[in-house]
């Protein structure tokens, strides 16, 4: 998506782009210019402190906490008579305060909520005291990936808080966090998290490299990163898994995957991923393995049903009536007797209606959304059938298909499933079942071509990895999962030492 941007800009680096974006280059280059620029904002405070210590404090009052300022910075200034910045630094009980005259650093820190102390307004040497106030919502329960059992924490927008959630669950020093800042204007902090000694270095380097290569002015959410670092940005399939559950991220880190946490986004990304991972939910690990397997298979069936049911309806009713057994034919033909449209039109009308309802439901506040769902589902559906616009059978099929597409545990792939069925419908209208086959063939080829951070996306199906199949369409018990998935090429693949596991006891022992 952003490839063309890269090409156009060519070798121009960050700073050049910024020059074009911000015309105020001149002002920024001088110390006074910087303060002049900041002074344009109403919330930038320049406070001349008088009394025992004479100095000038400047800060953004919307970024720095005034309570912190009153409690920690002002008292020592009032109490002591200080003449140098060094002395102030000594007396102010705040960690990581430092003195500098580096303009770049000052500029960077002032917009992060540091308080600048100068002895004189003309001075170029300043003391920087971190006083950032972090306001954000508190940790709440996961809403997108809700699970009945299991942990009920979800990420929030604050990167440090999210890292805290991850680190709490993985208390080992090997858990490594590398940080990069992306976005020429937003300067978004992005943390790359992995377990050193398990995660493959090649994967880590690929991720860091791709993050470094990003050229864009803003990174608002982790989904920006998903699209920008994906191997094929024209694909409808997301190539990194996004999740709002810290437990899920930790689970994948332990497998050797790499987590990408973006500041300001309550969704973390994990790479490399595979197509099967999108259909596994964290619930699968909280249930006994046979139940989990059964539910996974039901979900897999749901996906196929959701994608294929309406195309098959079109194909069979348009071209292959012979396939319907006589008893069933009576039901279908009686329900379709009054319909003036061919199957394809009928299907497209109904599918679009459902998509409309879904889109409306997603945009509206939750209370109204429910009402819309009921109005749409019951009133419009029944009315459409009674008016003779669509058949009962199709209404059931489309509603079931929509329902089935909601079973996807990951929201992103749900969107893909929603849209992928339309090419299939077109294929079905052109050449019936053969058209559906052809469409599926194209998608298979596409999936086999796809890669996630250079690792095959269609694994463990192709390349066929029998070991990884233990946790793909089915989930075998934990004691069968002796090794970490091969997909990530983990440095250490053994999950536990099988020899330490007690052998089976004989009868009456």
């Amino acid at each position, binding site marked *: 998506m952003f490839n063309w941007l890269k090409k156009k800009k060519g070798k121009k680096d960050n700073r050049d782009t910024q020059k074009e974006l911000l015309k105020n280059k001149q002002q920024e280059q001088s110390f006074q210019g910087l303060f002049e620029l900041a002074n344009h904002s109403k919330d930038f405070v320049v406070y001349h402190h008088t009394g025992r210590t004479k100095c000038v404090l400047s800060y953004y009052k919307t970024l720095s906490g005034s309570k912190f300022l009153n409690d920690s910075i002002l008292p020592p200034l009032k109490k002591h008579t200080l003449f140098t910045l060094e002395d102030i630094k000594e007396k102010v009980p705040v960690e990581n305060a430092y003195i500098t005259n580096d303009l770049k650093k000052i500029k960077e820190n002032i917009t992060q909520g540091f308080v600048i102390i100068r002895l004189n307004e003309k001075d170029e040497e300043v003391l920087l005291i971190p006083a950032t106030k972090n306001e954000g919502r508190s940790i709440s329960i996961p809403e997108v990936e809700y699970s009945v059992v299991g942990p009920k924490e979800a990420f929030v927008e604050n990167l440090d808080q999210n890292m805290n959630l991850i680190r709490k669950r993985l208390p080992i020093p090997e858990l490594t966090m590398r940080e990069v800042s992306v976005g020429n204007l937003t300067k978004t902090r992005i943390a790359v998290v992995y377990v050193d000694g398990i995660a493959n270095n090649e994967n880590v380097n690929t991720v860091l490299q791709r993050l470094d290569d990003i050229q864009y002015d803003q990174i608002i959410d982790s989904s920006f990163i998903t699209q920008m670092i994906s191997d094929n940005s024209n694909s409808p399939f997301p190539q990194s898994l996004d999740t709002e559950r810290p437990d899920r991220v930790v689970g994948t880190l332990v497998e050797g995957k790499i987590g990408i946490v973006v500041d300001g986004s309550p969704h973390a990304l994990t790479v490399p991923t595979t197509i099967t991972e999108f259909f596994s939910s964290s619930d699968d690990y909280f249930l006994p393995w046979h139940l989990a397997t059964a539910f996974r298979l039901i979900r897999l069936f749901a996906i196929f049903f959701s994608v294929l049911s309406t195309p098959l309806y079109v194909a069979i009713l348009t071209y292959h009536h012979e396939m319907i*057994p006589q008893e069933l034919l009576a039901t279908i033909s009686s329900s379709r007797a009054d319909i003036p449209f061919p199957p394809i039109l009928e299907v497209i009308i109904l599918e679009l209606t459902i998509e409309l309802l879904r889109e409306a439901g997603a945009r509206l506040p939750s209370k109204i959304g429910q009402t819309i769902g009921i109005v749409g589902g019951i009133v419009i559906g029944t009315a459409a059938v009674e008016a003779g616009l669509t058949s009962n059978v199709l209404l059931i099929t489309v509603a079931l298909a929509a329902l089935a597409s909601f079973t996807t545990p990951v929201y992103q792939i749900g969107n893909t499933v929603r849209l992928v069925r339309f090419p299939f419908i077109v294929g079905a209208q052109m050449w019936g079942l053969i058209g559906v086959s*052809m469409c599926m063939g194209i998608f298979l*080829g596409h999936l086999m071509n796809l890669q996630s951070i250079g690792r095959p996306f269609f694994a463990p*199906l192709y390349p066929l990895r029998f070991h990884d199949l233990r946790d793909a369409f089915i989930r075998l018990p934990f004691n069968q999962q002796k090794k970490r998935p091969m997909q990530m090429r983990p440095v250490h693949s053994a999950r536990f030492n099988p020899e330490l596991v007690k052998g089976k006891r004989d009868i009456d022992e």
Partner: protein
Amino acid sequence: MNKHSSSIEGLSIPENLLITPTYVFFLIHAMQVGVGILGFETYIAKYAGFDAWISILLGGLGIHVLLWMIYHILQDSKGDIVSVHKNIFGKYLGGFFSLMFSLYFLLLTLTVLRSYIEVIEVWIFPELQLWLFTFVFVLIVYYFVKSGFRVVTGLCLISVILALPILLLKFFPILEGDVMNLYPTVDHSVGEILRGTQKSVLSFLGFELLLVFYPFIKNPHASKSWAHFAVFFTVSIYLITAIVSFVYFSEGQLQYVIWGTITLWKIVEFPFIERFEYIGIAMWFYVVLPNIALALWAASRIPKRVLKIKQKYVLALFSIILIVVCCMFTDRQAIDKLNSVTSKIGLYVLLYIPVLFVLSKIMVKVRNRDEA
């Protein structure tokens, strides 16, 4: 992909493009099972009658021997068919023979494609827009071949997995059939059975593509057993298919059935669906697709190796040829003719393998003596 095309010799294939020996099973099996299996019963029963199952077994045995020879030829030269030809016949004559192979694979592609489209025309869409369908079909094949050998291999894998459940449908005709049809056993002469063998060998064509993709196998020696297993598996499937057809049809009836297997799908019936041949033919798309893709890949790879031109250009050219020629065959007689011509050439290719085997063994002997 880039690295791949930049190595002009073509034999130094980057590690990440190699396939593990297991996939040789899927490659060979997927290539051997094609449109032929939909209607081969009639052809082999023409001469050997219902003793044709012996012909299939004999044919299978022959294929095993030929496969063994191919492995010997390739191991001696440590390359593909192009390097084998170059070693034996020299640069120009060898190159010529290699290009003949390329054309043969293209012909194979054409035959499979046209036969499958004919099946669709006869069974599903009598008024199919031939050119449009061919165009879309070849476009899909082009997409796969362009993605490279690894993806084509993956397609073979998927194809085998998808096609296997269809085998379960054989259960329905067995229920309806009459085992007495098979008796009396062995009432045909050796000559008749051998003529049937000749026909059945042609159904097993496709394994010779090993001559082209051999350098792509990571540990060629380990792939031998997989390749033989694939041939064994194919022969078993053909055997089961033939016997089920013989049990269901009487000998006289079978002569008038063109597509035995498809006819058998017709009787499959579930409470919610019947006339299974529609699904069968649609599913057969996944069997035909790797067939065509792999053959077209091989056909376009040989000119790249011989003439040192980019494979994508050859592929584009061959795809266009495929579309144009495919649309020129419009009636049943012409397609039948195409099939018999391809079979004949296929037979020559099979006969050529032992010749190549002997020549390459002599070459090795001569070279060893020269060195000694």
